[in-house]
């Protein structure tokens, strides 16, 4: 109807300029005077979409990228601004719910510290340049004409999936490079490794909702482990009067999940596996095993007598028996193993022990179900780990890279100093960082490409942990880009690919590519497809596609892990085991630049806006420190300083420092706040998988003279006799309900 070329996202244009004003400015005037006319501006749409009505919120479906669980979300858009994130009820991952990180997505998007234009290192300093310059520079090094030897090209990403993964692999292939490092600090790689080896499936489905008893060895499944929101949904069923399951949490420092446990068991760091074997042995003795146990296995298990285990783990024998009996009485049981266990020195062994217990109590098949994988292999998730970081660091030290791409990762922040990653990284001739924020890695780059935020860009995500059916979740723009000089990740990669391969010339941008790619998905994958256009629109409306996928099969391999040495740690008066725990909110530190997250208190300690070192009252007494005293925590590879927080939810022989703070860059909210425990980690490796054993660093703690005010929410830590949170004994209820 017109000669005007319309931007495809025209309807996402912002209308009102002011947004919500300071409402109270107006009302101080006497009531006879009203607002002056002609102050605010109002703009109409050029061409209205009939469903976009000024003053009425419209919901667009998309996908949350705050962590890798891949929850579906709805963004509330009004006058072209995305205002709020809600969960997408259609997504089987989060069924209409989100976590606090998901909620904070809008502040990640509207963050005042976004990079708004490309930057290039000129005469040692990063300077703002135009995209033409940036692209020219990029092509000079990685373009078709460049004399780049693919083998000397490396790409560090976070967990990737969907079509980004496809494009990355494609470009790597075109360049002839195999150095793709997917790096995540918070991961479950050892868990998957064990699952792969013992069950034949890397990411089996865990039916928390079906379980009667959950024995969680440090798995913070309500906070940070694999797919927290989904697990929380199932946890609700697990707690429902119908089930009334029991949660036993074994860990050295209380996590959010530990805070919700019926029984919180602080076993010695690194001995959780032994505990599992102890329980297994006890159950087998009593004949509580649900599967047939070969004599050999029995024999091996027999070593783990209650007394010995109790002695090693520091958990009372009676307690071990109780847990065992719970697992059999309140079947079906489920045993999980999370970060503290996975990334300890003998993580693999410990997790295998847990898995063995799973098999013995017959969890496999009941509470552990075969996963549903997304049928299109290329789109499946490539989960990040720490092994890759080690490999990358090694490569850097051996000077194996001329060009390095970094996207969706911040290795300069996450890499322990011991890896010497920073120096190596600086010595790389050409470093390109795709980033939204001026983080540590960005500051070291030669070329910084400012990316769209997750709410401006297109993408597809395939969760690593699939639930009911295999999900492919679409991430679509919720509003037009805030800054004209930012670009989509896909767009840039496509541009690079075009130079090397004809196939991509048809695509003006990533959107076009994505649309075509999705429409060309075989019906085998998507199920019966309607007319293409409608398929696409339907997909965008729903925000995701739930396919039946292909079902894995579970095998159960009984084998008792061998513990090289009973790795446990005797706390001296000033040396501790460092627990660098991740938490819902800060996560691995990627959300430290979000004001809401900074102001949201830590779930257990309620400390805000800073790091802290958790100490047990005993330990604190030994050190002679009180809340707010600054202490120095030193490992062989450096030291950090932070304030003491004393509470009982931690073993006296460990010291807990949360991840997330201690950024040297990363914007006004994160910069120079708190300490980063990752920096001082010893380069201890998990023996089997070669992952970085994050929970195996011994540190010396010393007082400093300084004291600060510990800023936390809440006055009294007890209810002081108020009837606030009442607890009723499950037994009592069960008795009264006559459930036996």
């Amino acid at each position: 109807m017109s000669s005007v070329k319309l931007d495809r996202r025209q309807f996402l244009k912002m209308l009102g300029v002011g947004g919500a004003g300071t409402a109270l400015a107006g009302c101080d005037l006497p009531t006879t005077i009203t607002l002056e006319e002609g102050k605010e501006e109002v703009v109409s749409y050029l061409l209205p979409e009939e469903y976009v009505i000024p003053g009425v919120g419209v919901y667009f479906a998309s996908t949350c990228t705050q962590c890798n669980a891949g929850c579906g979300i709805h963004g509330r858009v009004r006058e072209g601004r995305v205002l709020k994130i809600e969960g997408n009820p259609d997504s089987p991952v989060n069924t209409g719910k989100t976590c606090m990180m998901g909620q904070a997505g809008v502040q990640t998007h509207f963050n005042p510290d976004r990079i708004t234009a490309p930057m290039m290192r000129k005469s040692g300093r990063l300077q703002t340049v135009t995209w033409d310059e940036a692209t020219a520079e990029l092509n000079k090094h990685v373009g078709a004409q460049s004399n780049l030897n693919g083998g000397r090209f490396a790409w560090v990403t976070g967990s990737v999936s969907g079509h980004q993964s496809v494009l990355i692999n494609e470009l790597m292939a075109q360049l002839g490079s195999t150095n793709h490092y997917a790096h995540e600090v918070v991961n479950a790689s050892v868990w998957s490794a064990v699952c792969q080896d013992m069950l034949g499936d890397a990411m089996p489905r865990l039916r928390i909702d079906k379980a009667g008893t959950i024995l969680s060895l440090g798995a913070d499944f309500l906070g940070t482990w694999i797919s927290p929101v989904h697990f929380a949904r199932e946890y609700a069923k697990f707690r429902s009067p119908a089930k009334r399951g029991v949660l036993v949490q074994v860990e050295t420092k209380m996590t959010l999940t530990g805070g919700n446990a019926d029984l919180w068991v602080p076993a010695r760091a690194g001995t959780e596996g032994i505990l599992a074997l102890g329980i297994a042995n006890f159950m087998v003795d009593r004949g509580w095993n649900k599967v047939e146990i070969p004599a050999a296995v029995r024999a091996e298990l027999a070593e783990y007598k209650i007394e010995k285990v109790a002695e090693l783990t520091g958990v009372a024998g009676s307690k071990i028996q109780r847990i065992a009996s719970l697992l059999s009485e309140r079947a079906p049981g489920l045993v999980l193993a999370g970060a503290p266990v996975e990334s300890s020195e003998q993580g693999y062994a410990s997790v295998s022990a847990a898995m063995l217990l799973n098999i013995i109590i017959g969890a496999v098949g009941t509470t552990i179900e075969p996963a549903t994988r997304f049928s299109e292999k290329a789109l499946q998730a490539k989960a990040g780990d720490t092994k890759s970081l080690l490999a990358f660091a090694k490569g850097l030290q051996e000077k194996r890279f001329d060009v390095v791409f970094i996207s969706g990762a911040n290795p300069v922040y996450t890499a322990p100093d011991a890896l010497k990653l920073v120096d190596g990284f600086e010595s790389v001739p050409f470093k390109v960082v795709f980033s939204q924020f001026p983080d540590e890695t960005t500051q070291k780059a030669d070329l910084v490409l400012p990316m769209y935020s997750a709410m401006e860009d297109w993408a597809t995500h395939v969760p690593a942990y699939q639930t009911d059916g295999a999900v492919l979740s679409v991430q679509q723009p919720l509003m037009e880009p805030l800054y004209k000089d930012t670009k989509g990740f896909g767009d840039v990669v496509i541009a690079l690919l075009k130079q090397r391969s004809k196939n991509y010339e048809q695509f003006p941008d990533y959107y076009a590519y994505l649309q075509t790619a999705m429409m060309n998905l075989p019906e085998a994958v998507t199920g019966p497809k309607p007319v293409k256009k409608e398929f696409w629109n339907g997909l965008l409306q729903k925000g995701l596609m739930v396919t039946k996928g292909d079902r894995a099969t579970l095998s159960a391999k009984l084998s008792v892990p061998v513990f090289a040495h009973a790795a446990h740690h005797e706390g001296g008066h000033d040396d501790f085991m460092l627990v660098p725990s991740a938490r819902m909110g800060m996560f691995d530190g990627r959300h430290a630049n979000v004001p809401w997250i900074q102001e949201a208190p830590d779930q257990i300690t309620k400390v805000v806006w800073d790091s802290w070192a958790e100490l047990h009252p005993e330990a604190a007494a030994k050190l002679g420190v009180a809340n707010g005293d600054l202490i120095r925590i030193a490992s062989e590879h450096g030291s950090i300083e932070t304030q003491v927080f004393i509470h009982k939810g931690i073993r006296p022989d460990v010291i807990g420092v949360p991840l997330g703070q201690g950024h040297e860059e990363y914007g006004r909210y994160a910069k120079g706040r708190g300490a980063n425990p990752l920096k001082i980690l010893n380069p201890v490796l998990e023996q089997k998988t070669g992952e970085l054993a994050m929970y195996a660093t011994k540190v010396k703690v010393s007082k400093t003279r300084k004291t600060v005010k510990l800023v936390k929410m809440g006055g009294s830590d007890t209810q002081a006799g108020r009837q606030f949170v009442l607890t009723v004994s499950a037994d009592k209820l069960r008795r009264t309900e006559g459930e036996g």
Partner: protein
Amino acid sequence: MTPPIQDKMIDENLKWSRINEDVLRSMENPRRAYWITFAVCLAMFAVAIAAEIYQYRTGMGVAGLSNPHMWDMYIATFVFWIGMSHAGTLLSAILHIIHAQWRKPIYRFAEAMTTFSLMTAGFFPMIHLGRVWNFYWVLPYVSDRGIWPNFRSPLVWDAFAISTYLSASALFLFIGLIPDMAIARDHTRGWKRKLYGVLSLGWRGDDRQWRNFRKTYMIMACFLIPLAISVHSIVSSDFAMSLMPGWHVTTFPPYFVAGALYSGCAAIMTLFIALRYFFRFEEYMTLNIMEKTCKLTFAIAMVWSYLNLIEFAATWYGHNPYDKELLIDKATGPYAGLFWLMIFCGVIAPFGLCFEKLRRNMPAMLVMSVVLQLGMYVERWMIVAPTLSMAHNPHQWQTLWGPIVEWSIVFGSFGWFGLLFLVFVKLFPSVSMYEVKELTFHLKHEIEEEAHAAKHAQGEAHGHHGTQGGGGVPVMAPAAPRSGKEGS
């Protein structure tokens, strides 16, 4: 036989002209001490203004308030000043009605104090508002929006009570001043003469005027007393009407009134001594009067202490867990120091007033009066703060100490009060001349009557004091016949 001079309120042989001279002198050529005090007060006030401007621009946060501590020193100080304001009424109205003669030389400045401390107190509820510029929304005025204040709120009652009390006591002060204004008029020149001329409302001191004057004065007095009581009861209901432990106390109204009179008397003692020293008022503000004041103060102190204990007892036997918890925390928790300071200053210290030696030792009394006032201030703060620090929800427990902004405004209020008072003493007679004259006259009259009774000789007395009237002072014709009744 004539009683020994030191037992008398005042020397009855004081020439009336002398009285005029002395008092009027106090209103002239300020000395250095005066200017220094003036400068100090001005400085304090200036600081407060600065602080208030800063607070106005930045927000109440700078006053160190927090979620549990929505109120703090501002309210405490408010209550304190309201308390001060009760002394004047006590002296001038209550004692007037019960014919306590000794009040006459000292009630004037006490009344001034009443008015000025009210003028000071009035500021605090405003200062502590988050949006000062809308303070008038508390008053019921006809607005185009057709909305009214919430008549259930004690704060609204406050607004009414205070404004009424302020206007009433100011009026009372003025009425009491009229005859003296006339004297001043007759003894001054220039602009002052004009001023006093206006203020004396053409007082000629004739019979009719005196009659009306006394009626009015008496009526005002009667009107003022219930008002004074109600004002502080209402102030107390700011707390008593709430649900909070330590506030929701039935004995608060009398408790507050007692406290008010208490601090008021202490304040009178301070000013008494100051004026006596600066203005050489030894003959007027005699030790005997001081004695009486001290005794009165002691009596009130005991009443207050009693009510205080009553409150504790009520809490204890009432067995409301929150109240009990709070009481114990007051005595042992972070505020324990202040609590015991309050108990010492308010309950123990006044026993010093039992010793005549002390009562007649001005420096000692000065210290004493300050101590008592300190005690009363702390008491007010101990009512406001601890309750907020430690109310029902333990999650919101927090102790708080006011920051510099708050302090400076509180100090500034003393500066402001000082200014008003200093201006007053130089513009108006701080001792009521005509009543002192009455006093001396009656005193003399009694003594003579006793003498004559001895001699059975009549009629001299009249002739005698007929010649007394000097310096254009009206003879108090109607006073004489009633003198027999009036004798204290």
